[in-house]
């Protein structure tokens, strides 16, 4: 007997499928298409093949800006990756220990900045670090470090690092929560068994807990990667679209914004912008691809 078509599945999938298609898949496909066109002064668009991409990668004006943004973006990602995630791991490990007083309170406090708008975060930190009325110079003075104070956000050498640390401060709660959740999911029996065998806490952490949460660390890594190569809002909120000084905080996101929408007297080009967006998409796609092929596949899942 032929089974009836499972209509209920189609009905339940339809809303998500429609919304995803209309607001995510179609714009993405249209962006890919638009990257092969060029815009004339009259607003007319024609097909030019790979010309936009060739211009982006070979014309010195475009490629210098692009590679600068790419370079900054990698730096931004590495700082966030190797500062935010170890801190998150440490915090999660501490919070998941038995009998930590006020653990819930700390969790909430550490997670709180994530809920704030990036614009507010940017504004608050600009004020804190302001050389005119910021509190940081005074606070540093209490421990005798006042001479070390610099206008970090205004210095070419430190602006990007400062911004990435602000980003770490805001978002450290997310990986912390994810790692925390997987740490407390480890059954107590395993830990107890190890303890009875005479393993130290240190030993237990490195040889039992850490391997068991590797899939989560992998997830955190990939979320950090995607999030940082799409980063835009913090830079835009603090430094504007001409991510100064001397483009030292320019990320692919701000570079894309200037190209697509234009800025001040720079006239935006939807087609060139689409080429930049597609390039960003390809970078992220290949990063994620490499990750899945080499790492995610090899991670073992442990069923408890």
């Amino acid at each position, binding site marked *: 007997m032929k089974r009836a078509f499972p209509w209920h599945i189609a009905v339940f999938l339809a809303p998500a499928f429609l919304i995803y298609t209309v*607001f*995510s898949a179609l*714009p993405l496909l249209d962006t890919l298409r638009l990257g092969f066109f060029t815009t004339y*002064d*009259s*607003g007319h668009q024609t097909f030019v093949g790979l010309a936009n991409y060739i211009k982006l990668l070979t014309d010195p*004006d*475009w490629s210098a800006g692009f590679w600068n943004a790419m370079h900054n973006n990698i730096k931004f990602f590495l700082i966030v990756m190797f500062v935010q995630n170890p801190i998150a791991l440490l915090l999660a490990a501490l919070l998941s220990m038995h009998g930590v007083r006020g653990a819930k309170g700390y969790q909430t406090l550490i997670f709180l900045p994530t809920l704030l708008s990036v614009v507010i975060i940017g504004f608050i930190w*600009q004020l804190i*670090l*302001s*050389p*005119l*009325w910021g509190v940081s110079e005074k606070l540093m003075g209490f421990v005798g470090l006042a001479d070390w104070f*610099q*206008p*970090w*956000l*205004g*210095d*070419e050498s430190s602006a990007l690092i400062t911004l990435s640390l602000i980003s770490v401060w805001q978002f450290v709660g997310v990986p912390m929560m994810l790692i925390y959740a997987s740490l407390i999911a480890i059954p107590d029996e395993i830990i107890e068994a190890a303890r009875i065998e005479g393993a130290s806490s240190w030993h237990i952490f490195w040889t039992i807990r850490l391997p068991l949460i590797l899939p989560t660390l992998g997830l955190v890594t990939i979320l950090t990667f995607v999030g940082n190569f*799409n980063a*835009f*809002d913090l830079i835009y909120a603090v*430094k*504007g*679209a*001409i991510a*100064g*000084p*001397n*483009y030292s905080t320019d990320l692919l*996101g701000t570079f894309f914004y*200037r190209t*697509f*929408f*234009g*800025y*001040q*007297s*720079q*006239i*935006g080009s939807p087609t060139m912008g689409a080429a930049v967006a597609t390039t960003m998409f390809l970078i992220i796609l290949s990063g994620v691809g490499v990750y899945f092929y080499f790492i995610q596949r090899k991670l073992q899942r442990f069923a408890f």
Partner: protein
Amino acid sequence: MQGNRFIRTALCAALLAAGAAQAGNLTIESWRTDDKALWEDVLIPAFNKKYPDVKVKFVPTAPTEYDSSLQTRLTGGTAGDLITCRPFDKSLDLFKKGYLESLNGKPGMQNFPDSAKVAWETDDGKTSFCMPMGAVMHGFLYNKKIFQELGVQPPKTIDEFHKVLEAAKKAGKVPMALGTADQWEANQIVFTSVGAPYWKGEEGRKALIAGKARFTDPQFVAVWDEMSKWGPYLAKGYSAQTYADTQNLFASGKAAVVAVGSWDISYYNQNAKFEYGAFPPPVPKAGDKCYISDHPDIGMGVNPKSKNKDDAYKFLTWLGSQEFADLYTNKVTGFYSLSNHLISVKDPVAKQMLDWRKSCASTIRLNAQIMNRGEPNMENELWNVNSQVLNGKMTPKDAATRIQTGFAKWYKPQQK
């Protein structure tokens, strides 16, 4: 981020379309979020006295988002009936793409001199597409109390200017409030304003466009040279000082001098508790003619897709009237009407600035016309280069070379 933007745009578009569809209604697109109350409480009611049956809605978008969101709405056919125009190429681009109507011969346009219309016409000067509304002027404000304590007068030459700053520094004041975190000030109210007397205003600007002068010529390098000497006179950590910080710093009475655009007057009228005056950019040598950056900044055009063009033109006619010129100049302090009407300016500092027109020659911002058209975009380049010169990170010579190289790369007359 992407998805959100699309959804938001679509929602805004739907809302605007619903508002624009009714006859007898006009929607004004603008970036002047600061003036929203003024439009709603003063300008639109004044218009409604003459035309009571036209409902006008003023819908501003934040200045930094205006150009991109307007472009999106125009492309989608959901933009308002009246479009506030940025000067020069930005609006010219809209006109070329068919998003602005030609205003040739429309009533009201006859009230504006050619020098005002130049910001919104095609390169051949034959077609105008926006009605000029207002100009801004650039110069310096000074704290009268501090100047009195120091026993100094508003400086006329660069030498005097330095003496004043030096005296303020010795007295423990911040000599000049200026920061480079936001970058645009370094170009729009420093380089193109302070530089005008060096390159002799229009003469120097036109020579660049004609290809007869280079940015590496002494009259341009001298400006960067002057700016490179300002570092010691600015507040500590000025490289992280935003425009809002600058405004606060001068309004708090700690700084002797601030480089400003005339729009700042309304801010300081509200926030500064002391008397202040204005002086134009100092001239290089005593006896030199003074030049000021007197820049047409804001105009108004008509959306060709408007469903209510008749009313839009009624509004535009009123925009060209004596009544509007008077209201605009005196209520939006720091913006000066560009029309031929005789208007008395009531605010003392705004009047002081306007009176510079009598003794100094006016010019527009150096790169506003034609020079911003190529890649690399000169406006963005100048923001970057000028901030770096102020920060002491780039030499005047390197600054000149970089701007000249970028300019000559795409501009034919500069390649000879």
